[in-house]
């Protein structure tokens, strides 16, 4: 599409593909509405347990993955694609490599999001945070990502600008790293179209999961957005970035260090000490490049600070970078083991995450939308005033959200660890620590509503802007100052240029592989860490069926299964969890949040009837519980159909089941279920529940912590 212009040397004619940018921008806005709305619903459910309306697909455990996936892949994902397609074409002075691939990328991605929005509330989940999607969707994600990569690198190869601006670097790092992370963390073996099991077990799964999980933050919510910052900040301020040299150091230090930081999600757990220390050290080092980048972004405004008063786009950008600085200050702080022992599993972490997503990703995206909308719809922004109001309501919303969660997290963390002079827990009942913070859940919901209210103003503003746009939005031919590769370079020179992009990509790949390999590979040879003399019994078929229900209902979104090596924790829950105890767990269920207590040693603590009543109505046994009721577990039937396949798969993966276990899986499950149902009947349950989900779940819950050496 580009050609040299004979009459105007040094200029090339380009026709940008702006339609694809408009499409992704609109998708960003639409999915943002969904992500924010589901966020508000689940925030309210934390405050008012009745709000699941006793309906399975409206319950927190199923909606929470929907919220995180919508925010991450739908909202942030579409925003990244819009910004990358917009800025890359302009920075490389060429049209997108393929319009068709662009369309395929767009519709493929939206289709994936719709599939996610249907399957997650139905409880089809792999039970790993931010990686819940089942295997057919995983494959679709990878395919569409490859389409995106081909389109991006194709554009890179036909560029009319010899040099790659730093934003392009960040995009390249994003594309290769996300592909690597997503594929490795999704390696699973299917037993049916809707169910698969991850190949990694226990500690391996934990480590791979958080290597993925933390780098989803790094390479999906940070590096692409930094690339966008390096483009839109100079654009909006109309001056170059504060220091280009600093951006080079920012890039290499950031991608090299980030990849190691995952283990800070597993501090004070059964994870080997050296990995914990490594995670802490690299997390703390991340302070430097993160702040280097933030300072670089903000100081771009040097000499034109007045824009901060007059231009809402600059306001959003500066606030976004400030939130980035706050988030990346807090992150390393929370990675310090002592701070982590207080903050982990509490709402502080939830607050921390939202500081980043609402403040950094949200505000940066809003700035981008306000920048793109008038330009690509060839009109003026409908109302600057509304954008201004959006900014202030949004800020207020984030502050409400963050401060209430910080207060809730620290309060609850301190209550969990409070021990009196006699060495007893001051708050032995977990629910006491919950009641104390419930009012803060309301404040958090108010924060969410405010943030959403601001967003509605954006929605209206963009709608009005598009309404006043001219009908004809055809791509126009523009002239850009550039180096038309085809004219100024010999064939050899051209190839050398391509080689530069390839060499760069390989260097970036090396930078992210270094940490990945050193961190993940040793743990994959699990024998080094597992003491084989500590025998662990695998779950019975019925318990596995129960475990599937546990995962399906998203119990892990509120309950951990990892007693940390902290004194108050051992007082509350029993001996610290060992690596061996979860060595057959696929997926691992160590968890990341305790809205309810840890369940690692729940088994045999209460009679079966207690669990039955608790699932039917938690308030029947714990008066002040905020857990929703799960009545459908008592009325709907349990599916034993795939148990044989499951056990056989586990056997292949090294779990010590015999051939007899495989053949007799269903019979064994039914026998055990009859036993539990009979006991429940003796204790006063009227109906026969031997074929209902509840018996399987009870079997699993009663087995927790019972399989290791006693």
């Amino acid at each position, binding site marked *: 599409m580009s050609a040299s212009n004979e009459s105007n040397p040094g200029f090339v*004619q380009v026709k940008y593909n702006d339609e694809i940018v408009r499409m992704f921008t609109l998708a960003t806005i639409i999915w943002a509405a969904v992500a924010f709305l589901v966020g508000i619903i689940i925030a309210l459910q934390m405050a008012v347990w009745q709000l699941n309306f006793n309906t399975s697909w409206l319950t927190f455990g199923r909606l929470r993955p929907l919220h995180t996936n919508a925010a991450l892949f739908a909202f942030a994902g579409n925003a990244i694609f819009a910004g990358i397609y917009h800025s890359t074409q302009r920075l490389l002075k060429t049209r997108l490599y393929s319009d068709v691939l662009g369309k395929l990328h767009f519709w493929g991605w939206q289709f994936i999001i719709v599939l996610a929005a249907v399957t997650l509330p139905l409880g089809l989940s792999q039970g790993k945070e931010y990686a819940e999607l089942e295997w057919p969707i995983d494959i679709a994600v990878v395919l569409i990502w490859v389409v995106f990569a081909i389109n991006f690198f194709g554009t890179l190869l036909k560029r009319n600008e010899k040099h790659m601006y*730093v934003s392009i670097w960040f995009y390249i790092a994003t594309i290769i790293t996300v592909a690597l992370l997503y594929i490795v963390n999704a390696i699973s073996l299917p037993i049916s179209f809707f169910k698969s099991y991850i190949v990694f077990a226990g500690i391996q799964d934990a480590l791979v999961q958080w290597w993925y999980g933390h780098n989803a933050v790094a390479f999906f919510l940070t590096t692409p957005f930094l690339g966008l910052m390096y483009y839109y900040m*100079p*654009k909006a301020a109309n001056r170059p970035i504060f220091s280009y040299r600093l951006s080079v150091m920012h890039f290499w230090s950031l991608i090299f260090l980030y990849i190691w930081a995952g283990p800070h999600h597993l501090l004070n757990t059964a994870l080997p000490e*050296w990995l914990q220390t490594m995670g802490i050290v690299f997390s703390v080092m991340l302070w430097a490049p993160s702040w280097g980048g933030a300072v670089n972004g903000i100081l771009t405004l040097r000499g034109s600070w007045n824009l901060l008063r007059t231009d809402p786009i600059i306001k959003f950008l500066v606030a976004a970078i400030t939130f980035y600085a706050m988030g990346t200050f807090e992150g390393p702080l929370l990675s310090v083991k002592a701070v982590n022992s207080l903050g982990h599993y509490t709402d502080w972490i939830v607050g921390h995450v939202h500081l980043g997503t609402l403040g950094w990703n949200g505000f940066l995206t809003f700035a981008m939308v306000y920048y793109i909308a008038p330009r690509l719809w060839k009109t003026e922004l409908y109302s600057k005033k509304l954008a201004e109001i959006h900014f202030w309501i949004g800020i207020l919303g984030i502050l409400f959200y963050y401060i209430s969660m910080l207060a809730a997290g620290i309060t609850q963390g301190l209550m969990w660890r409070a021990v009196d002079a006699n060495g007893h827990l001051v708050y032995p009942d977990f629910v006491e620590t919950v009641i104390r913070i419930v009012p803060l859940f309301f404040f958090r919901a108010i924060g969410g509503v405010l943030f959403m209210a601001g967003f509605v103003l954006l929605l209206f503003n963009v709608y009005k802007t598009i309404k006043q746009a001219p009908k004809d939005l055809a791509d126009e031919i523009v002239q850009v100052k550039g180096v038309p590769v085809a004219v100024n370079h010999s064939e050899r020179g051209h190839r050398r240029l391509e080689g530069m992009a390839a060499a760069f990509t390989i260097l970036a790949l090396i930078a992210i592989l270094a940490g990945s390999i050193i961190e993940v590979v040793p743990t994959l040879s699990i024998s080094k860490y597992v003491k084989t003399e500590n025998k662990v019994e695998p779950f019975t078929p019925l318990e596995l069926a129960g475990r599937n229900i546990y995962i399906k209902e998203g119990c892990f979104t509120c309950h951990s299964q990892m007693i940390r090596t902290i004194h108050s924790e051992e007082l509350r829950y029993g001996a610290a969890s060992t690596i061996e105890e979860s060595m057959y767990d696929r997926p691992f269920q160590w968890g990341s949040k305790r809205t309810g207590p840890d369940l690692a040693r729940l088994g045999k603590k209460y009679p079966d009837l207690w669990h039955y009543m608790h699932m039917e109505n938690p308030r029947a046994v714990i008066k002040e519980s905020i857990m929703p009721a799960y009545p459908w577990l008592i009325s709907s039937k349990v599916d034993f159909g795939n148990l044989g396949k499951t056990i056989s798969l586990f056997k292949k993966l090294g779990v010590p089941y015999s051939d007899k276990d495989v053949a007799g899986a269903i019979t064994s499950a039914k026998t055990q279920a009859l036993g539990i149902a009979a006991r429940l009947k003796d204790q006063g349950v009227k109906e026969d529940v031997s074929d209902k989900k509840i018996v399987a779940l009870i079997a699993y819950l009663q087995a927790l912590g019972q399989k290791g050496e006693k």
Partner: protein
Amino acid sequence: MKQQALAHFADIYLIAIAFFLFLSVFIGYIFWVYRKGSKKHYDYLSQLPLQEEKRT
């Protein structure tokens, strides 16, 4: 082979070597970024987003 390699994993000398390797790469690219005569190049790069397109 793999097990033997892993046995040396926590070896303090290896860690020290890795540390100096990383540190020297870091110092190396700081020098590279501030190399003589690079100012013009970086000024050019930093202007890339600001090059305005002309309607034809």
